[in-house]
């Protein structure tokens, strides 16, 4: 039995929502892309690719509060920009490879994860830490925890097997936690 359910009407609500997102955040999207490249043509391509990604996640986006939605859009453009620039071979020299051969286990974080969760300004500090991480780690952590990408989607972006994503994520998390605990440690020294 082939039953075609005409979704024209449902589709129009997706269209309305995506058009609203574009109208509301178009300048922010271009501004974010420009932080990665000043080439106008590349910026345009990045925003187009980002729109495609946002449409693919339209059901997820609907559930987000405005503040988190804005964060999702920024992370999408950042993520797309990094991937775009990688493809253009512009930033390869800055990319830290995560092949098993040259991987070094990060030092264990000094502060326990359970303590960090309760710290008041942890969001601010973690955001700053994310910017210090390698682009691969940023792709992994923002992709997994902000953009809700599956292991398979992350694997496509990084050009690796989906089965290796879990281990890469564990390492990326620990890299972030080491830097985060260092920030708190420095603050304690200053306070003392």
């Amino acid at each position, binding site marked *: *039995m*082939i*039953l*075609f*359910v*005409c*979704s*024209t*009407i449902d*589709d*129009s609500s*997706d*269209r309305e929502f*995506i*058009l*609203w997102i*574009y*109208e*509301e*955040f*178009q*300048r*922010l999207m*271009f*501004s974010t892309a420009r932080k990665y490249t000043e080439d106008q043509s590349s910026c*345009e391509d990045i*925003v*187009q690719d980002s*729109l*495609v990604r946002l*449409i*693919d996640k*339209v059901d997820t986006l609907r559930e987000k509060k*405005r*503040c*988190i*939605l*804005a*964060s*999702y*859009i*920024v*992370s999408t453009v950042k993520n797309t920009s990094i991937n775009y620039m990688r493809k253009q071979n512009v930033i390869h020299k800055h990319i830290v490879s995560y092949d098993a051969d040259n991987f070094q286990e990060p030092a264990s974080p000094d502060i326990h*994860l*359970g303590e*960090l*969760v309760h710290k008041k300004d*942890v*969001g*601010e500090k*973690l*955001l700053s830490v*994310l910017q210090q991480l390698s682009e691969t780690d940023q792709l992994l*952590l*923002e992709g997994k*925890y*902000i953009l809700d990408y599956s292991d398979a989607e992350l694997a496509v972006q990084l050009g690796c097997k989906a089965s290796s994503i*879990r281990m890469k994520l*564990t390492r990326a*998390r620990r890299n972030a936690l080491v830097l985060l605990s260092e920030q708190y440690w420095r603050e304690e020294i200053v306070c003392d």
Partner: protein
Amino acid sequence: MTEKEELIIQYEDAAFALLMHEAAAVQGKRALEENKALKQDDGSGISAHLNRRSQQTIERRLSQKQKKDAGRISHILKKLIPAVCLLAVLFSTVVVGSPTLWEQTFNVLLPEAEKSETIQFGNKNRAEEKKPHEFEELSVGWVPDGYRLVSSGKSDNGQVIDYYYQQTGKFAANASIHISKMTGDMGGVVADANGAETEYIDVNGNPVLLIERSGAFKALLTDSSRLTFILFASEGLSREQVIKIFNSIRYS
């Protein structure tokens, strides 16, 4: 990996997700502030050319997504229990046998729409009466001033023609017209009429179901002699404009 190591990774994952949520909230707050500043900055405007390109990207991707979703629904339905299929076939056989009965069935279902979420009807097996891919043209003779055609085209299998208009220079959702034509052998239509004003109007001898909710119109023309549905959705138009558009639609 031991069970304990497994649990530690799960714990780290959950705790880190909480930390990232905090980071996302901070990033979102900053993004909203930046967005507000950019909106007030005349120099950061987006060119009309780029807006057009973005809109085309959106339309193209939504269209692909719609086809993909329809394919998924079709796949799920194929797996429905045999009893449901049998009932559907029996229903289709009786109803499709007579175009008059087919329209009557639709009329019977209409009052029920006020009580339920959807109207649904279908005319499976019509494809057997018609060669596949045999599809006629659709044209729209009139749209209100200020509206332009943003996208149009046929589906890959040639069974749906689509027109999408939008008010010039607007991305607002309240200024759009969407018209689609599909052959009867596509199977069925679901139209949400819950809580809406519904009425029938006559357009060139064909019944058109007009559904109005909060100023938005959805309409469905059924031409049983040509096995055709015309679907229509608009925001921001008057009833008279909707009827005028419908009267200007031609299909052969």
